[in-house]
């Protein structure tokens, strides 16, 4: 459907990003957690402008940062919705009805996998195994994992998010 506008850096967000990135020098092994927190500040994305700020604080050049972020599935350089809805498509979910659940979600959100809703609230993606295999099918919405889904439960859940009943 539609593509979100590129994330725009403001003085405030830049200060927040710098503050996070500063933590790198003392604990370089925490780079992933730092970048993931920064991503949350930036509309669930990690675009070039943000990489430049992080580069200045960490000393890691932009090309190397991009090598790192483009490798990991959880980091995106294009903006995504406020809620990232991730449907697991791995085998245990697949054979217990993931396709039907996804159909229901696509129907409720009125977008297909890979797209973002026009109001910029929801991005729908497939993902690989969420580790909820004994309770499949499962989805992850931002940091919340929902399992034992049926098409009905899934569309009900999405509707709660749409209504704003879930923070």
């Amino acid at each position, binding site marked *: 459907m539609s593509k979100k506008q590129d994330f725009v850096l403001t003085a405030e967000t830049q200060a927040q990003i710098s503050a996070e990135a500063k933590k790198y020098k003392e604990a370089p092994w925490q780079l992933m957690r730092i970048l993931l927190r920064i991503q949350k500040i930036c509309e669930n994305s990690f675009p070039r402008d943000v990489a430049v700020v992080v580069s200045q604080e960490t000393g890691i050049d932009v090309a190397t940062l991009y090598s790192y972020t483009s490798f990991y599935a959880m980091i995106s350089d294009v903006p995504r919705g406020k809620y990232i809805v991730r449907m697991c498509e791995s085998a*245990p979910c697949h054979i217990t009805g993931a396709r039907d659940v996804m159909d229901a979600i696509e129907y409720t959100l009125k977008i297909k996998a890979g797209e973002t809703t026009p109001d910029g609230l929801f991005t729908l993606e497939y993902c690989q195994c969420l580790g909820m295999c004994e309770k499949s099918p499962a989805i992850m919405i931002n940091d919340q994992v929902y399992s034992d889904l049926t098409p009905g439960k899934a569309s009900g859940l999405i509707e709660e998010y749409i209504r704003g009943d879930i923070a």
Partner: protein
Amino acid sequence: MTMLKETRIVLRNMGKIDPVSATDYRAQGGYAGLQKALKMTPGEVIAEISASGLRGRGGAGFPTGKKLDISSKVEADQKYIICNADEGEPGTNKDRIILSSDPNTVFEGMAINAYAIGASRGFIYLRYEYPSLFPLIEAALQNARNEGFLGENIFGSGFSFDIELVSGGGAYVCGEETALISSIEGGRGEPRSKPPYPGAQGLYGKPTVVNNVETLANIPVILDKGGEYFSKIGEPGCTGTKLFTLCGKITERGVFEYPMGTNLMDIFETHGGVKDGRDLKGVMIGGQSGYLINNTQMDLKMDIDSCRRKDATLGTGTIMVIDDYYNLLEIVENIMTFFIHESCGKCTPCREGNVRMHEIIHNINVGKGKMEDLELLEELAETMKLTALCALGQNSFYPVITSLKNFRYDYVRAIERGQR
């Protein structure tokens, strides 16, 4: 058929304690193993673990005592213990169960291992897809520190050890130990050539021992009750228990702990057989790069060596039941999709091979296959097995190869249907 009862060693505290509370854990006998270990020499600790026969539970099955012994003998100013909590294998979520119900058993296991090799720092590499575990483990770590079970001078022994929680970013390949190390160091999760081995040159170039969550969870019990006690459980050569993740179309799903060597058929029937009374088509065992076996191959002892002897694999303990609803080729295609996503892209055979396998199977599935395709699949699998850089590429084709062997008719039928 035997109705099985669980043997809970790893899951001994599940449901009995507040997972975050170190005092709850202590009250159940936790940290007794560590306390005993600190009164032994590191060499004695390693001997106890070796005597137990414990082998890695992450899929490789390497003897844990031997792994510790190698690193203990390397001279270095710093060593590391890493807990591999990057459980990404579809059909496996046992580590999530362990960490969410009893993280202290993992901390204690890490501390004992650290003492054994002379490490003072540990990392838990936790996959991003377990977001609720981050605050839980951070809280559990802080409580353990507050009670003195982690940090400086534990039990007044002079031994200091602390653990930091680091995150993955959505890459199954980071479950491979050298890729995991690369990821912590701030790099792409690309596996490294061996030698050098992480035991000698790992994280930041220092001796590093990487263990799976389940492996670590066993260590406190081994030190507390003795290696000999542990060695009597399970099978000789493959001792202790195994956590099995039952998923797919089985009536009762979940994570269950049985002794090594328990029969697959017994597990299957204890947990209700196929859901909704459908027929059993087969089972995917081991994990995603596990084996697809058919319904005549269910008489299988589930331990590392017995599985290997019967051309099967124990892997991470996945038991994914497939009923007769699904087209098997579609399942194999789905499995290959996973590997296409998760290949790191570094080496030719894996980067190219997974896609080409998927391509061929897809074509067969949609009626565009030829009999020569089956030969090509075998050849490609052989090339991947022989030349891939890491265990991902060396194993990703097993679902294809085993299904070719155990479900050959499904392939042939699809090809013939397409040619009509």
